[in-house]
Each structure stands twice: as C-alpha cells, then as structure tokens.
C-alpha cells in the first residue's frame, strides 16, 4: 500500500514537473533538462543549475523593439552611497549589438523561452553562498566595461554614473526621456567594396556587399560578429583597424567560398562583375527564384554545378490542376485554365507561351490569356 502511494506520488510529481517545464521553458529546441540542471527534478527552491557555461546553450534573439527602451538600474539604491542609479538606454544598446553578438552578448546563457533579466540569475547581495557566478553589481559592470573600456579606454565611473546629490529627480526623468529617444542611426550598407590585395596577379577583389545580403540572404551577424563600436567609430586616436593576416582575411569568406584553390573566382586584375546566375549558367533566377537560398536547389554542400535547367527537375510534373498560375502574374481566364500546360508552353522551361495552336491572330505578350495581377 505504502509502495503504491509512493509510486503514485512519484508519477504525480513527474506530471506536475512536465507541466511546469512547459510553462517555464516553452521552446526547448532539442536540448534536454540535463543541459542546464544537474538533478533529475529541479524545483524553484533548488534549481540545481550547472555552472555556466553549459555545454550547449540556447540563446534567443529578439528585435530591439521587443525589449524595453530604457531601464533605470536602481536595484542598489540602498548600497549606492556614492553614485546615483544608471539610466541604461536598452534599445540603443540592443541596436548596437546587431553588428556584434546580438542579444546574447548580454543575455548570455539565456534558457529557452523568453529573454530573462540579469537579476534572475545574479544575486543582489555580494555576501552569498554561491560564488560560482558574480553578483548583480559585478555582472552589470563586467558587461558594461567589456565594451566601454574598449570604446574610451577609460574606467571612470562618471562615464555612466552621476555622483549622488549631483542629479536630482527631474534630471533623472529627463535623462530617461532622452535615453528613450536615442536610437542608433540605421547602418548604411555599402553595395560594392573593392579590396586591393598584395597578391601579384589578381590584385583586386570586388566584394558585392549588397548581393551577399539581398541575393544570398546573409544576416549582418553572419560576418560581423563580435565587432566593437570602434570598427566603425574612431573616437580615440588609438582606435584603428586591426591588421589582419591573410588567413584571417580569408576566414570570413571561407565559410562559404573555397579559398584554398580557385583564387580567380574572387581575385582578378580588373573590377569583377557581380554574381549573375543567368550569365554564368543560362538559368535566370531573378524571376521566380530570387528569394530562396542557394542550398534549396544546390543540395550538395559546396557544389553548385550539375543541375538541369528544366523545371521538372525540381518541381516535378506540373499539371493544370496542381499549378497556381496566379504566381506568374497572370490569372488565367476560364477557357485557358482548363487547358493543359503543354497546350501553350511548349518549351521545357515554360517560357514564352504560343497562342498559334488555337488563335491565328493572337500572340503573347500582346494578348494576355486572362488578367495581369501583381506578382508576389
């Protein structure tokens, strides 16, 4: 009997646990409890969190607008006898982090679910038992200083703080308002960058920055990770771009391009043309395939050749039943929508339809077999 109750209790607890787990972590992207917790049944009292960083960590990204605009860090009011609370322009910093590590730059080791604040993990009191992670004050300052030190080279407290007494309440309010309005200006992306390299032949590398974003669908962070403000801003005299070695320069490109062989694919003596699928292969992707990434069609990693230009190769056989003609920008009228594809499209790439099979006096694109709509 006793045994039974115990077993029931055990399963109940498991059930309850599974319930709360879903509430706390709604989106466990394939990570297990053991990634973060050391015990089988973590509770709120004893979460038995493993020391950071855990082996595989999930961090989530939000857009800067999703977070608060301004945070006034006044948790230490009692302790702060020297300095007034800091007004932290959260949104501005979130925007700036876009070129670096994103939200996880500060919200590190964020469990799956919503973005959590610093004080959820870092204790407010410095005199504490668990010393595996810094207290809240330490955590704040460590994060701030990693960037602010490189920015100005200074560690002056007054860079962020106002000395107590110097600022009164109205000033703090206006500071808050001011911070809320501060946003990082939109980062203007260059379209083309021409690199002069020390290479004897093939001196020039023409880099189509806009193509990498628009055509290949790369995010800023795909290349610009961990870049401090100084990459763009030169506030201090000492701030200068790091001199990179050849290997370091190639490293960024090498994640997609083969930089070991085939130098001429990037290097040439003159300005190179940008990437043009039609010119290179004869298959125009600007019409219908501009929004999909390369690997949708080119499955094999690093190999972009050997695909047939025929639509059937990827799409299978189209019939009047399974093809939404609307997608091409032309909604067929009733008579034409009943026809088989091949009645009009005789070429394998379904280009230029012929009308002469039925009509003697009509031709495309002078006459439209339906009505034109906006392509989406």
């Amino acid at each position, binding site marked *: 009997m006793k045994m039974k109750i115990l077993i029931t209790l055990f399963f109940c607890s498991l059930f309850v646990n599974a319930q709360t787990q879903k509430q706390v972590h709604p989106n466990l992207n394939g990570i297990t409890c053991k990634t973060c917790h050391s015990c089988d049944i973590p509770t709120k009292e004893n979460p038995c969190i493993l020391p950071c960083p855990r082996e595989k960590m999930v961090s989530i990204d939000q857009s800067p607008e999703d977070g608060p605009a301004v945070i006034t860090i006044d948790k230490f009011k009692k302790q702060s006898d020297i300095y007034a609370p800091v007004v932290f322009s959260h949104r501005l910093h979130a925007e700036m982090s876009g070129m670096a590590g994103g939200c996880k730059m500060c919200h590190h080791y964020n469990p799956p679910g919503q973005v959590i604040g610093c004080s959820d993990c870092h204790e407010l009191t*410095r005199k504490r038992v668990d*010393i595996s992670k810094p*207290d809240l004050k*330490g955590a704040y300052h460590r994060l701030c200083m990693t960037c602010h030190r490189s920015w100005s080279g200074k*560690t002056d407290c*007054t860079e962020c703080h106002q000395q107590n007494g110097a600022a009164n309440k109205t000033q703090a309010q206006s500071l808050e308002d001011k911070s809320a309005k501060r946003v990082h200006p939109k980062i203007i992306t260059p379209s083309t960058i021409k690199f002069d390299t020390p290479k004897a032949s093939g001196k020039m590398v023409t880099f189509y920055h806009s193509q990498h974003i628009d055509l290949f669908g790369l995010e800023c962070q795909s290349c610009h990770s961990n870049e401090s403000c100084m990459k763009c801003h030169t506030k201090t005299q000492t701030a200068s771009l790091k001199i990179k070695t050849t290997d370091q320069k190639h490293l960024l490109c090498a994640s997609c391009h083969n930089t070991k062989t085939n130098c001429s694919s990037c290097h040439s003596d003159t300005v190179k043309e940008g990437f043009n699928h039609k010119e290179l292969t004869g298959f125009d992707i600007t019409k219908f395939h501009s929004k999909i990434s390369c690997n949708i069609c080119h499955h094999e990693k690093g190999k972009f050749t050997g695909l047939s230009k025929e639509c059937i190769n990827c799409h299978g056989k189209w019939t009047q039943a399974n093809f939404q003609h609307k997608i091409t920008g032309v909604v067929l009228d009733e008579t034409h929508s009943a026809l088989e594809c091949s009645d009009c499209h005789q070429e394998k790439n379904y280009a230029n339809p012929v009308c002469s099979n039925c009509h003697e006096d009509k031709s495309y694109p002078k006459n439209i077999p339906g009505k034109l709509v906006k392509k989406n």
Partner: protein
Amino acid sequence: MANYSRRDFLKTAAIAGTAVTGLSSKTKAAPKNILSEDRMGVLVDTTVCIGCRKCEWACKTAHNLETPSIDTYDNRSVFNKMRRPNDKALTVVNEYHNNDQDKFPINVKVQCMHCDHPACVSACIVGAFSKQENGSVIWDTDKCIGCRYCMVACPFQVPAFEFSKALKPDIKKCDFCFERTKEGKLPACTEICPVEAITYGRREDLVKAAHQKIKNYPNRYINRVYGEYEVGGTSWIYLANKEFEKLDFPKLGKDPAPGVSEAIQHGIFAYFVPPVALYALLGGVMWINKNKKKTENETEI
C-alpha cells in the same frame, strides 16, 4: 675554599635544571594560529579587474588613513610605475601589459595574502601576530615592539612600518578588514569592487570556483591558481591569463614559509632536552677536569 663538595654541586645543578624545565613548559604558549576549515578567503580574478582603484579608496576610508577624493582615482598615470603596499596604502593595484593580445592591460591588486601558515605569526618576537579563525592574519599593536622581524620573514614583502613616526610607530598591513567582518560586513575592497574581480567566500569554495573557471574558459586563464599551494596556501588566491611571475608574483615553493625555521627551532628546543643535555655535559666535563687537577696537585705534593 676547595672543600666545595660534590653534594653541593649536584644540589645546585638540580635546582638550575628544574628552573630550566619550568621555563620550557611555559614556552609552549604560542600565539593564536588557527587553521579553520571554514576560513574565508578572496579569489582575485585579474582578467576581470579593470584597474579602477576603488578598492584602494575603500581600504583607506575603512582604515582611517588619509584618503584623497574619489575623483582622483580615475587618473591612470599612477600605473606608470610599479607600486607596493606601504604604511599609507594597505592595498595597491598595478598594471601590466597584455602582450598576448592587444587587449586590455592586466591589473593586479596587491595586499597581504593572509597565509595559512604565516611566517609573520611564527616570527613575531612577542607573538603579536595571529591567524584568526576567519582566515585573517592580524596583529596586536599594543604588543608590537617595532623590531620589524615580520618584514624580514614575510615571503610576499607585505608588512610595512611607519619609519617616519618617532613615537609609537606601527606595523601596517591589510588586516582583511577584521573589524568589519566581525560585524558581519564584507571587507571594504570586496564590497566596493564594481566588477567583483575580488570574490569573498570560504577559501575551499573559492579554490573550487577558480578551477571551475579555468575548466570553463581554458583560453582565458593559465592553468594555475596562485596561492592554492604557495607557501602552504594563502587565503587570497589569484587567477591570471599570464605567468604569475611576469606579473611580479614571487616564485615560491609549496612548503610553509616558517617550516625550516620552526623545524630547526623545535629541534634545538625539543622539550628543552638539548640545552639541558649540553648543560649536563659541560657540568660533567668541568667536574672531571676539576678532579683531575686535584689529584694532580695531590700527587705533586
């Protein structure tokens, strides 16, 4: 004159012997030297320290030393030359080049290490120094006679002396804020540190935490916790990303600093047996020689 008898000799010798043994039983009274399992310590992570020198300010304020205004501590030109704690500043922060990467400079806070087996406690002539249960090594200024032997003994060259004072000059060193911790407060420097580069906690926990950090960030730290074993272990322990000797830490062995000295000392004074034995031996030699002389004289006559 010459009838000084053998019995007299033995009697006086016995009295002298008892007096000496009486002394020996009292000498065991040694200064407080506790090595508690729950002793506290501080983990200094030099890779976190930003060199803001707020600890210097807090230390001076807490110890009623002459303290400049807090704004003056932003001046980083003091790092141009290496500084040491002295009678006017019980802790100082120094700066070193980070030659591995062109990253931030390395800042190292210096103060008393609060050894587990302190040389100063062993050395102090009047037993003014003591190792307290909470790990701090402090001294009783009322006992101090100003001999400065603690300064000779300290392997970290920490105790400083008020050479400029003619009247009641004192030894000065970090006391781990003994008065503050007694009231349940944190040491002044660990309380003010903005980045918590100095973590206050049980020494045992700190050693574990330090090794966990090295394991988690093998590129950030060299695999060594300075003070874990140096001179038998210290209460303040350090992490760094560069060889400690290049950051002006002394190269020290694992043996406690007073070890050899105390071994010799206790060897010579093992229950006062060697001195008493020497005394007895010399007494014996004296007696034999005296008798020899007497017989010589008698035979001559």
